[in-house]
């Protein structure tokens, strides 16, 4: 009965102290704050050794937090002065806020920043385009992964159009052996990220729609957005039984155990799936409405690395950030973590076939980023968090597409006034 906050806060505090005193043990030890706990092994075994080999005297520790808790934990650590030296940056407004509060050091003048395109930098630059505050690391692409052995045994082929997509799902459902579409709504974010933002760009025409939202020319209650929610509602009958209580790791395990056919994915899943699944995977981009329509993919600038202004080893931290701009890093990162695509201009050959498949869509489809991040991610209620909630509710059947769209627009209207009309 005596579950008190104090106890929890005290334990968390003690853990922080333990972590930070560990970090201060050696002179030039860099601690990286990140939300990529899935990548811990790759950082420890591949990326960090490669850096330490060429930079003797600098030790690097990768210290990730659970993705959903990352920002809250990071903010608390930054305010308490216990955050690591290098800080993984979410794109756009979240990191911009950290920069404005003086927690992130400008990195504009570091060596090698010209190897990043303007698009890559746009996610971590001030509104006036003058100060870059994080070094771009990687983007992730959305699409669908499928179990090749299920497809082959049934003689199925990846769909190109929406009609083909649902026909395919119907076939798998009729067979009844595996779940046709593998996504759950318990953790909520998958519904928005791997659902709404995955299939949506085809409907709102990628960047065109995203910019129109920012300019106030389009609203979430307009047809493309309502249609995106309607699509999600149509997924309901194809989801695994009890998907309302299915968390993200459950979905991942269902797919890698071969109990689901199609997995609405982010390319970041590829690395973990390669390690766990004993069948071959394939991938297809979000189906378009009619054959021959232009396709759009969510190619989201997702991760960058910034420097804590309070770091005790600014020179070592700068050396690490500059290393991120080298061809060596681009190659190591893209191949050690298939599914994360380096944002620098160095030509990189992605060796993993599935990751290369995702990357190939950049040539045939137009890229866009998630519409809830740039500028629209600044207010309260937070658009991204709201999208999680309503997308999950649409898939649960507790909100209709129209209601979801209205709720989102209402929240946005409450604080966002488009610049000039």
């Amino acid at each position, binding site marked *: *009965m*005596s*579950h*008190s*906050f104090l106890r*929890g806060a005290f334990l968390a505090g003690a853990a922080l102290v333990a972590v930070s005193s560990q970090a201060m043990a050696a002179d030039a030890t860099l601690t990286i704050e990140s939300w990529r706990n899935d990548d811990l092994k790759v950082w420890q075994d591949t990326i960090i050794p490669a850096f330490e080999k060429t930079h003797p005297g600098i030790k690097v520790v990768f210290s990730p937090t659970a993705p*959903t*808790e990352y*920002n*809250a*934990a990071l*903010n*608390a650590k930054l305010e308490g002065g216990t955050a690591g030296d290098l800080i993984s940056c*979410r794109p756009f*407004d*979240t990191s911009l*806020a950290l920069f*404005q*509060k*003086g927690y992130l050091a400008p990195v504009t003048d570091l060596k090698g920043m010209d190897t990043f395109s303007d698009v890559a930098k746009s996610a971590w630059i001030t509104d006036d385009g003058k100060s870059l505050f994080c070094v771009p690391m990687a983007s992730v692409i959305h699409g669908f992964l499928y179990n090749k052995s299920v497809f082959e045994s049934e003689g199925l082929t990846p769909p190109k159009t929406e009609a083909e997509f649902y026909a395919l799902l119907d076939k798998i459902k009729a067979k009844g052996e595996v779940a046709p579409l593998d996504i*759950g*709504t*318990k*953790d*909520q*974010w998958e519904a928005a990220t791997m659902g709404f933002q995955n299939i949506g760009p085809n409907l709102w025409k990628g960047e065109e729609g995203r910019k129109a939202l920012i300019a106030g020319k389009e609203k979430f209650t307009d047809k493309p957005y309502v249609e995106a929610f309607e699509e999600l509602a149509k997924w309901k009958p194809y989801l*695994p*039984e*009890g*998907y*309302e*209580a*299915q968390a993200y790791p*459950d979905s991942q*395990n*269902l797919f890698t155990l071969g109990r689901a056919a199609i997995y609405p994915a982010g390319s970041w899943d590829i690395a973990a799936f390669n390690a766990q699944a004993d069948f071959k995977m394939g991938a297809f981009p979000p189906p378009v409405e009619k054959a021959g329509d232009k396709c759009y993919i969510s190619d989201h600038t997702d991760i960058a690395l910034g420097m804590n202004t309070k770091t005790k080893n600014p020179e070592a931290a700068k050396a690490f950030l500059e290393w991120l701009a080298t061809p060596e890093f681009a190659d190591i990162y893209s191949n050690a973590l298939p599914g994360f695509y380096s944002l620098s201009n160095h030509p990189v050959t992605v060796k993993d076939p599935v990751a290369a498949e995702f990357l190939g869509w950049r040539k045939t489809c137009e890229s866009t980023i998630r519409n*809830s*991040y740039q500028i629209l*991610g600044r207010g*309260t*209620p*937070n658009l*991204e*968090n709201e999208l*999680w*909630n309503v997308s*999950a*509710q649409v898939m*649960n059947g*507790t909100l209709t597409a129209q209601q979801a769209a209205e709720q989102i627009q209402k*929240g946005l209207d*409450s604080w966002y006034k488009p610049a000039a009309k």
Partner: protein
Amino acid sequence: MASTQTAELPRAQIAGRRGRFPWHVVVFLAPATLIYTVFMVYPLLDSLRLSLFTRDEAGVESFAGLANYAALFFDPQWSDRFWNALGNNVLFFAVHMLVQNPIAIGLAALLALPNLRFTNTYRTLMFTPTLLSVVIIGFIWKLILSPTWGVAKSMLGTVGLGSLFAPWLGQEHSALITLALVSVWQWVGMPLLLTYAALLNIPDSLTEAARVDGAGQMTIFWRIKLPLIWPTIGMVTILTFVGNFNAFDLIYVAQGALAGPNFATDILGTFFYRTFFGFQLQLGDPTMGAAVATIMFLIILAGVMTYFYLVQRRLQRYEL
């Protein structure tokens, strides 16, 4: 069950015979007062102060009066979530009062029966969940109830009730009740032990006298034992109230800080956490969080005071 009235000592006796200032009282009180002030009173007052301020984008604090409270109660963005959390919290408390405490009293009454064997074993088994970490409890129950991997479905299936299974933690109408029952399962040991101890304190002569007068076990419980343990039940009630309105950990472990689905399991603790620390892309708002914490404090204070003034004073205590 002694009366709580303390006999009043004459002032002169406290102050010593010559009427000197009672330094020893100060010395004895100082350590506790000091520690309590540093770790409880000061943080409490400082968070009250913080709730009257607001922070701009650069993190500079400025005085804002009651603006945070006004937003919390009247700005639909905040108030919808706040009232939702408060309502859920009341329901969470109600489940504990209606399920946990009656079960605990019933089990205590059974354990206190004179001829029961293996009393210690039962008592230990029932108290074990209370000793486990909430993180473990949350994780175990999440696994048990998981529609994908859980045993709940197959266990219901073996007794022919498979159709009753639903993804309880994922449905808006069942998630909160499910978690409240998990919490009941975990914490039932506490009121159980307290009432059990109170029951053991009842002298055998009373129950024996009742039996001589022809009362059965049921009559003895309802007419003799229960009236004697009302003060303990009152204390259990107030502990449950304080515990439930401060609850946070189980919801956080099982559903995350977003307290899904659609905030159906959001209670004041998780609401406070999201406000104060932020969640995913929503940044933390320490001043607003302090306002939420203050309201939580006032709710608990009001509940406890109501109890002490209206209930505690009317409870009859018997000198045994």
